[in-house]
């Protein structure tokens, strides 16, 4: 009976929404029509500009990382007996290779906290992980610009360490000193089957393809960069040949299958969400210089410029809102196009993927209410500060 009631309610809501859709020549109608148009315009822009040259290689890199790099060798540094400083540094950068979905981030966080190196490295990892996974960094740099991509990575790493240290200073007494477990149950993680330099060449050639295929025309004319730009397709081709060589001679057939499989898994995991994320971002905010459903003046009013308030607002909204992997990028693109300041944009990029209401609830299960509140406060205030600093310079 309750189920039926729920269905009736859903139908009623959908009916009312459709009934009152603003169709026609009224201002609201025009706005709605623009929104629909912008949604598909943005989707089209992504399909044309970002999918083939940027997302496809990025997915292969992410797939390769999850299959070929030994995650066990990184996880070792999170044990209870690991060197403190090493734990912090590794925790804040390891998101690059460990974190692509919340499946990895939250259990790792809980593991580091309760059986490993403690609250400091755990929170450092939790903050920086989602912001510096390869896919996020690549897409941010590609769509939102190199500066913001680099600022996001540096901000995530340095503020991750700061937050971790602050947490461990505040909660020193509660640290788990009685841990006997100095290693994790990770026997399933395979051992590397080739020398490190071969891995470097393999990943290097893929990064090379990604970088040179996407190289944009340098602004100054005479320089060394212009020469590189003119040869970019040759360099890309060279990287491709190198990659083909490494695949043909250094890898076993089974490994290649798992690589393709894991790449496919990422595509299947992320693409649908990205698709809808782009549609929604386009519908609400439009492309740069094209207004959609939300008036640009609202965006400018709330997060324009670089005041403390707009940075704080961006951080708070980012912290509570849930962003599916990578969808923060089109949303930010829309907001920046509608007049969001660069500082608040970085604040949102830093606070956004690290926290969301659902993941706060899981975090609370692990570290309790008090620590969760302190952590959220730190994330919001440090992201705000990062935004202020970045906004002041760029």
């Amino acid at each position, binding site marked *: 009976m309750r189920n039926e009631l729920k269905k009736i309610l859903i139908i009623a809501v959908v009916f009312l929404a459709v009934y009152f859709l603003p169709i026609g020549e009224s201002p609201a109608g025009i706005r709605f029509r623009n929104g629909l148009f912008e949604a598909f315009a943005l989707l089209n822009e992504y399909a044309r500009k970002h999918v083939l040259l940027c997302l496809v290689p990025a997915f292969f890199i992410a797939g390769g990382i999850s299959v070929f790099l030994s995650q066990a060798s990184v996880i070792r540094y999170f044990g209870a007996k690991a060197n403190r400083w090493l734990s912090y540094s590794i925790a804040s950068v390891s998101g690059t290779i460990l974190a692509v979905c919340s499946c990895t981030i939250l259990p790792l966080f809980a593991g580091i906290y*309760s059986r490993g190196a403690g609250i400091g490295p755990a929170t450092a990892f939790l903050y920086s992980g989602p912001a510096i996974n390869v896919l996020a960094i690549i897409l941010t740099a590609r769509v939102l610009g190199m500066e913001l991509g680099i600022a996001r990575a540096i901000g995530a790493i340095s503020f991750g360490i700061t937050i971790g240290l602050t947490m461990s200073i505040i909660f020193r007494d509660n640290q788990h000193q009685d841990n006997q477990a100095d290693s994790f149950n990770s026997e399933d993680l395979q051992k590397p089957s080739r020398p490190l330099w071969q891995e470097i060449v393999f990943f290097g050639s893929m990064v090379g393809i990604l970088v040179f295929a996407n190289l944009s025309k340098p602004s100054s004319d005479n320089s060394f960069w212009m020469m590189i730009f003119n040869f970019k397709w040759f360099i890309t081709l060279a990287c491709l040949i190198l990659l083909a060589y490494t695949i043909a001679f250094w890898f076993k057939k089974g490994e290649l299958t798992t690589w393709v499989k894991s790449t496919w898994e990422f595509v299947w995991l992320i693409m649908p969400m990205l698709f809808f994320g782009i549609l929604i971002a386009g519908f609400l905010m439009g492309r740069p210089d094209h207004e959609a459903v939300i008036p640009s003046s609202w965006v400018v009013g709330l997060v324009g410029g670089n005041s403390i308030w707009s940075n704080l607002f961006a951080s708070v909204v980012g912290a509570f809102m849930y962003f599916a992997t990578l969808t923060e990028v089109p949303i930010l693109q829309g907001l920046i196009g509608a007049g969001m300041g660069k500082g608040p944009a970085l604040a949102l990029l830093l606070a956004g993927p690290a926290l969301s209401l659902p993941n706060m609830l899981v975090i609370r299960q692990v570290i309790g209410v008090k620590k969760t509140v302190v952590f959220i406060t730190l994330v919001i205030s440090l992201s705000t500060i990062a935004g202020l600093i970045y906004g002041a310079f760029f």
Partner: protein
Amino acid sequence: MMRIQILGAGCHRCRKLAANIEIATKELGLECTIEKVTNIQKIMEYGVIMTPVLVVDGVVKIVGKVPDIDEVKRLLSSI
């Protein structure tokens, strides 16, 4: 009777693993109980730090990856 547990805090990959296992056990005609463990503290008790995890009769079998249906079948019928 085989006791299968799937550990994961409700993420996409964990649901995928659960779905694959349900299909595989049905196709094998295996008599078993399938239990989903979503509480992260309980997950931690198994000493794993990546999800999804497949536990059969209390023993951790797979950590941090989603095997396809054939792989699950092979694994389950070899136990």
